[in-house]
């Protein structure tokens, strides 16, 4: 069962802050602990920054997953930017095209519980990632 989505459009650097604040708020509402809240906020910050840096324009959406077995927050980041040629490369630690640390996407994967990335060159990138609420 899915509830309604809430989205943040990423165009300016400060939109990243808006996105992670919304993410943290939703996480708090469904009962995520403070450490995991920080993990979620950091993960949102990373993927939103990727949109801002590389695609210039995109969206980060949040959804609450609530089934009988488990509860969690689903984050979908979507952009129509240049796309990623070699996904296995960007998932490697230390790979960066912008002179950064290159820990962004592999870091997000470690911060979250489930992680899925799809990208097509010149079409855009979609990242779906879930953090489950620990019982």
């Amino acid at each position: 069962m899915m509830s309604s989505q809430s989205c943040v459009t990423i165009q300016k650097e400060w939109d990243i802050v808006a996105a992670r604040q919304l993410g943290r708020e939703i996480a708090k509402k469904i009962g995520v602990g403070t450490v995991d809240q920080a993990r979620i906020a950091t993960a949102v910050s990373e993927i939103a920054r990727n949109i801002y840096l590389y695609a210039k324009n995109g969206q980060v959406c949040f959804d609450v997953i609530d089934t009988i077995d488990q509860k969690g927050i689903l984050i979908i980041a979507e952009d129509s930017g240049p796309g990623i040629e070699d996904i296995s490369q960007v998932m490697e630690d230390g790979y960066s095209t912008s002179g950064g640390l290159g820990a962004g996407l592999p870091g997000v994967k470690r911060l979250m519980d489930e992680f899925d990335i799809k990208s097509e060159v010149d079409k855009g990138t979609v990242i779906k990632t879930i953090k489950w609420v620990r019982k």
Partner: protein
Amino acid sequence: MDRNLKRIALENSDTIVKMWMNEINTIKDGNYTATISDDLFESTNREFVNVIFASIKDQGSSKVVEDFSEKIIQLGWPLSYITDGLQIFRRVTIEYILNNSEKVNSDYFSKVLESVDLWVEPIIRRLVNEYSGSWEHTVSLQRVALQELSAPLIPVLEGITVMPLIGTIDTDRAKLIMENLLEGVMQHNSEVVLIDITGVPVVDTMVAHHIIQAAEAVRLIGATCILVGIRPEIAQTIVNLGIDLGKFPTKSSLKKGFMTALELMNRKIVDLDSKEESIEKMIESIKGE
């Protein structure tokens, strides 16, 4: 033609004002201006409609419009009050002119529309510009204010300086932090700089990257950087992200960082009481002799 229409509108301004007042009162309820007292609403409406007529009379005189917009902005009334008011004005004026014309064909109709639009448009443009100008001004003031409390550097002891960081670090701020840090280290002749991130809500790779760069730059000019105020949840996210902060010392609190700084400089905090006590003992022992 236009002059003729203008004459009709100005000569019958009383009727048009009455129609306009009726209309604008209907949108007051349940809308943005609902909390405003009736007296103020009434008097402002009157002023507004007078401004409109004054502007029409003088072919878009800017002075009255400017004064009025300043007043409305100061009162904090929403922009939609102005756009709605002018929209209503356009509607009732067109309605009035058409109702009081003898022959109405499509040509005449479009002429009336065009003329009234030409009267109202400069006022809308002017007021909207004034409004957005005041917003931009506010935003730029806030940006300056934010920058002022962005990255202060506080010398606490000879050779030890603290930079407390509070709030989100974006690219602009990161640059400012770096500049202030290096400048301050030179100016205060610091040997140890403590960067306190207790107030930074999220440390992602970009923030970490900027801190690492700042620490490295501080190292290059011969000082040591200690990162303090790392909360447990931040420590965990840093580890998850796989960020290596091993190149400089880190501490959980400013207090611990300060002790480390003292150690680095071969200094110690000594309790004054014990000193006094020992002096007293010395005096005692002298007395005893």
